[in-house]
Each structure stands twice: as structure tokens, then as C-alpha cells.
């Protein structure tokens, strides 16, 4: 039995449906990331699991127990909020002890558990301070500590890094990964940042307009996106799409041939298998998977060159006015206006 199970979960605010028929299974100890553009319902889904919103229909089970009608505190969850949500009038110690105190845990045990959590997070020296006297990163750690102290079945993180600066965000991300490895707790993590999703997750759930687009391991999603949205959402810079038609469909159902914009392919991965020959389709190639090739089928005029130090991103205009990008780690000497030709590895392209 899964640690967290969502069955046909629906949520509507008035007539606006924000979550549509979501079904999910999360195994014990898994790190699951909900990712999607803003407004896709990922935070709402997390709040439904937390019990801060009520379901319109469906069921939620946590640790083999239906929790649909239970209040948040009885669900065996702990949540870390985007804005930390620390109680400003309590010291760090009291912030962390509050939930245990409400449960009536003996003072001695509270002290032990708070100190243990503080030790894990290396903030034993901060226990007497108030949140106002802490930096953003320290506050974030208190918020995580408050969750650890409860020893929940499931940790819920709602965009916990979005209020931190870039350097701290990286450190805290590493810290969260380390914590997860150390505690082995089931974790659900919401973010709009695909780097966080790719680096932290055992399993990514991509959401769009309240629907699950794809569920899977990060590299599976990256290499075998189930649809154009997932392909375009994951990966930076975003995948290049070229318009054309489906010219062939061999025996194997997940293969097809593409023609358009001067590109002709052999049998490559066909994602939208419902399309038939002659339908207009798109060919997706990641900027990283283009190969400089003087005799390649794809021609583009350089319109922008960005040197990032490690990588160089080149923006080009194809003959049919399609914008596309090329990324390379190699030194490359092109300037705006140059015409460059590319080839690609047929194993790494997709037809949508």
C-alpha cells in the first residue's frame, strides 16, 4: 500500500475547477515534486493533502488511513510554508515545541525532541531567539525544524526556497536533499523551479491547469516526455519545436517520420500516436541535442549569442522564421548574422 494515495481528487472554487480528477500513488520514503507553471494547481493539491482545503470529490489516504475528512493535525503531516509561517511572538524553541505542547507531550520529551531537531539542522544556538532576529535562511531552517519535531508520516513543502536568494537557495536545496536522505521521510514538495524538481525528486508530477500531465523519474520525463507540454516545460533552455507533417508511420506504433522546415527524419520517436500520415505535427529537439554539422538539414541565422561561462546559448532563426536555440559547452566562434547548419541524433528527437 502506498504511503500517500490520491483517488479521483477534484477541487473547484465556485465554478472554477482547479484540480481535475487527480490520481496519484506515493511510496514510503519517496521524494515527490509537484511542478508546473503558476496557477496550475500544484499548491492547491498540496493544501488538499494537508487538509487546509476541502475536497470537492475524491479520496486521500495517508499511511493506509483515509484522511479525507480529518483535520490537518490528525493527518500525520507537517508542512513548511513558502513564507515560513513562524509564530512571531514565540522563540525558536517555542515555535518548534508548539505542536508537541498542544498534543500534551511531557516537557522533558519536548525538550529532547526539539534539541534533536535543532542538532540535525545545526541551529542549537538559535533556540532562544525570536523569528524577527533571524535571517531568511535561518527562518527557513526553523520552519523545517518545526516539521521534523512532529515526526510526521509525510513532509509537505510549499515552495520553500522561493523567498531565498540564489546562493542560499542552492545551499538549502542541498540541505533538504541531505535531510531527506538522513530521515528517509516521505516528502511532497511543490515548486515552479524545474532545477529544484530535477535535482531533488525521486518522482516528478507535472501539472497543468489542474491535471496531471506526466508522472515519472526526472530523467524519464526529460528523455521521454509524454506530451508537448512536459517536453517544453522541463529542460533549460526550452525544447525547440519545428512545424511539419507526419510523412510515415512504420509498423511499430511509437515511431514516425517527419518532414518540414527543410528537415526530413527517418523513423524517430512518435509521441502523439493518434496522429495519422499527413497530419501537421511538431518535431521537438532539445538545444543540447543539436550537433554542429556543415551538411546538416537544419539551417539558421544567428540572432543572439549568450556566453554563460560554462555554456554558450545561441539563438537562431530558421528559414521558415522559427526561432530555435543551440547550447554547447564547447568554445564556439560565431557572431550575429552568421549562418550555421545543424544535424541531430535521431534517437533524441520526438514528434508531437
Amino acid at each position, binding site marked *: 500500500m502506498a504511503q500517500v494515495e490520491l483517488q479521483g481528487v477534484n477541487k473547484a472554487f465556485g465554478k472554477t475547477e482547479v484540480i481535475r480528477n487527480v490520481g496519484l500513488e506515493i511510496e514510503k520514503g519517496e521524494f515527490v515534486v509537484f511542478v508546473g507553471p503558476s496557477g496550475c494547481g500544484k499548491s492547491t493539491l498540496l493544501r488538499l493533502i*494537508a*487538509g*487546509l482545503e476541502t475536497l470537492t470529490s475524491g479520496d486521500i489516504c495517508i499511511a493506509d488511513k483515509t484522511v479525507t475528512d480529518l*483535520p*490537518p*493535525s*490528525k493527518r500525520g*503531516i*507537517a*508542512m513548511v*510554508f*513558502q*513564507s*515560513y*509561517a*513562524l*509564530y*512571531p*511572538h*514565540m522563540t525558536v524553541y517555542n515555535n518548534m515545541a*508548539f*505542536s508537541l505542547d*498542544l*498534543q500534551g507531550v511531557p516537557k522533558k520529551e519536548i525538550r529532547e525532541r526539539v534539541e534533536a531537531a535543532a542538532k540535525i539542522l545545526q541551529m542549537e544556538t538559535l533556540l532562544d531567539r525570536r523569528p*524577527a*532576529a533571524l535571517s531568511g535562511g535561518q527562518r527557513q531552517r526553523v520552519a523545517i525544524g*518545526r516539521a521534523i519535531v*512532529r515526526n510526521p508520516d509525510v513532509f509537505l513543502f510549499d515552495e520553500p526556497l522561493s523567498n531565498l536568494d540564489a546562493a542560499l537557495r542552492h545551499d538549502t536545496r542541498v540541505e533538504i536533499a541531505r535531510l531527506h536522505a538522513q530521515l528517509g521521510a516521505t516528502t511532497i514538495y511543490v515548486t515552479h523551479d524545474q532545477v529544484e524538481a530535477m535535482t531533488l525528486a525521486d518522482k516528478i508530477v507535472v501539472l497543468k491547469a489542474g491535471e496531471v500531465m506526466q508522472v515519472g523519474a526526472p530523467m524519464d520525463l526529460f528523455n521521454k516526455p509524454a506530451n508537448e507540454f512536459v517536453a517544453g516545460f522541463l529542460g533549460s533552455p526550452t525544447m525547440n519545436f519545428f512545424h511539419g507533417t507526419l510523412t510515415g508511420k512504420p509498423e511499430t506504433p511509437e515511431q514516425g517520420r517527419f518532414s518540414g522546415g527543410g528537415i526530413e527524419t527517418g523513423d524517430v520517436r512518435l509521441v502523439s500516436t493518434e496522429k495519422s500520415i499527413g497530419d501537421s505535427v511538431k518535431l521537438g529537439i532539445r538545444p543540447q541535442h543539436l550537433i554542429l554539422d556543415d551538411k546538416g538539414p537544419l539551417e539558421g541565422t544567428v540572432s543572439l549569442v549568450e556566453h554563460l561561462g560554462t555554456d554558450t546559448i545561441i539563438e537562431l532563426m530558421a528559414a521558415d522564421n522559427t526561432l530555435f536555440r543551440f547550447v554547447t559547452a564547447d568554445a564556439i566562434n560565431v557572431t550575429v548574422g552568421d549562418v550555421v547548419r545543424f544535424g541531430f541524433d535521431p534517437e533524441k528527437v520526438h514528434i508531437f
Partner: protein
Amino acid sequence: MRALSPIIASNGLAIFLTIVFLLPITAIFAFVVTTPLDDAMANLGLWMHAHWQWSFPEFDTQERFAKIGFALRSVVIAVGISFFYFGISNWLNASMARVRCKNSLGRQSNIIEAIQPWIFVGPTLVLLLLFLLVPALSTLSLSFQEYDGTPSVRNYAFLWDPESLGYLQFRLAMRNSLMWLILVPSTCIIFGLLIAVLADSVSWGVVAKTFIFVPLAISFVGAAVIWRNIFAGGGIEPLETINGMTPSYQIGLLKSLLGHTAEYNEPLYSLKFWGNFFLMWILVWVQTGFAMVIFSAALRGVPEDTIEAAKIDGANPFQMFFRVKLPQIYSTVLVVWTTLVVLVLKVFDIPYALSANDDDKLLLATMMENARNNWSIGGDNVDNLYASIAVMLMLTVVPNMVFNGWRIRREQRELGN
């Protein structure tokens, strides 16, 4: 480089003297020049009188229109003088600084910035001095004098001498004031919080809050009259005189509900000792709306996420309120509390309207008025006695002021961190 302070001092003095001479002259000049306007207004009135054939005497019309004219030009001149004051003093400040430090813009602006705040604060300071500090000091000195000006502490005799005028009244007034000070603010705050919290959890909360808020718009005397009808005797017969006051033909709602008959018709607020609480209730009724509105807004300001975090932590509604919400609006509660304390110290109308002559219901403010009205037969130093009670009233405000000052300083320190 010469020091700036002598320049600032001399410029300031020059501006001050100019203003002191110029403003009254301008005002008098403006009034003199505009005098014919009153006649013009009066003539307008006469013309209207004739045109519409008003029935009352022509002289009344003439006088009233002249008064309107005077009022109008007074307003215009007063506003004009204010603008003139700011204009002329700022202009003087800037141009004198320019003359004194021709070559240094930095020094010019230093001088201007040193004087400018005083130009804006100055009038307020003068008004405070004239109408608050001077009267307070003269009250103080008056309270230590006999009627003929010889120094004396006899006016304060009610503090220690059981034989003296006002000995009993002062004790009753202090007892009552203390009860009012403790009970009224705390009851208002408790009710205000309760209603603010409860009203948020029902759909008709806005309507309920409106009803609680409405009494705030009623004057204290008005509220006293309303509640007199509820607390008054329950009989249907006209009531006899009680404590020197004849209650009118009353509804006596509460007493009727309690089953009191015409035979037992003493108003509830006249009861010995307990009557005080019925008087306090009137102020609570008026002021709860004030506390409620402020707390309502403050509770809305409690971050939603801390409430959600507390829900996840497992707080029940009571713990949510007392351990999460209330501590976060603590400073608002303090502000409301001090405001109500000041208000209670000023309360005069409610006890005066309902039980002016009852020593048992005296507050310091009503005691002062009583001293003026009733004690004149007892001595020749009524004004001085009156002053000494005023000083006592002032002393009771001091702890509150000290506390407020301390609190504001502490809050600023915390913000500074």
C-alpha cells in the same frame, strides 16, 4: 569658516519678530479693509427680505446677514493668514540664508533646514503653551492659594482632614474612578475581542458588527437617556423624587422584566454602590463598538499562514485564539486599552446626567462640577478648591501617560532592531 549657530539663531529671531509684528497688523488690516462687506451682506439680506416678503422684523434679517458676512470673511482671513504665515516665513528663511551665506549652497540649506521645522511646529507650540500649559500651571498655583492670594494648602484638606469639605466625596470619587478605570476598559476589550472573533465565523457577522458599532455614534448623554429608560423604575405610576431627582414617567424595561412593581421603583442606577455598575455598563455599551472595530481589523492583519500552521500543529479554536492570534495583536490591545483609560478619566456626562447629586456615584470629573455647584455655601475659596480637584484629576492621568511613553519607546526600539 564661521559657525552656523549664530546665523541660525539670528535668522530665527528675525523671522520670529517679523511674524509677531506682521501677522497681527495684517489681520487687523484685513478685517478693517473688508468691513464694508458686512454692510453689503446686510443689504443683500434686506433686498431678499423685500423680494420674498419675509414676515419677521427687518432688523433681524439685517443683523443675521451681517453676522454671516462677518463669519465668512473671518474664515477666509484666517485661512489666508495661515497661508501668509507659512509663505512669508519660508520666504524670509530662504532669502536670509541666501544673503548670509552667498557662496555656499550647502551652508544655505543647512540654515534653512535648521529653521524650517520650527516654522511648522511653532504655531502648534504656541497654541499648546497658551491653552494647555499656562492654564495648567495657573490651576496648580491657584490650588495652593486662599481666595485672597495668600499661600495655603487648605484646598487639599479633603485629602487628610475628615472635617473638611469634600473629604467623603473625594474618597467615593476615587473608589468609583478606580472601579471605572479597571472595569470599563477590560469589559470593552473582552467584549470587543469576543465579538470580533465570533462575528468573523458567522455569515451575518457584518450585520451584528454594525449593530454593535452604532452606539459609538451616540453621545454619552444620549446613551444615558436611552439607558435611563431601561434602568428606571418599573412602575406605571409617576415616580417620586429619589436622591433629589424626579425621574420622568418611565418605561423601566429591565425592571419590568425583573418583575419589579410600582412600589419598588428605585432606578437600578441609583442603587447604593451597585448603581455604579449600571452606569459603567452604559459606557461599555457605547465603547465596545470601538474596541471591536479595531480588533476586527487587527485580527484580519494576523498572517493567514501562521493560522494555517497552527491548524496543522493541531490548535483548537481556543488555543488558536489565545496562543496564536491574541499575542500577535497584543500591541493593538494595549493601544485600545490606553485609549479607553483616557476616555474613562474624561467621563463626565453619564454619571452627571443620571446621578449628578448622588455622592455614591461621583467620579473625579463630576466631583469637580459638584464642588462648583454645591459647595459654594461651604466656603469662600470655591475656585481654589475647584482647582485642587482639577490637579488631582490631572495626577490620575500621569501613570497612564508614563506607561504610554514607556510603551512607545519600547516599540520603537523593537522596530529599530
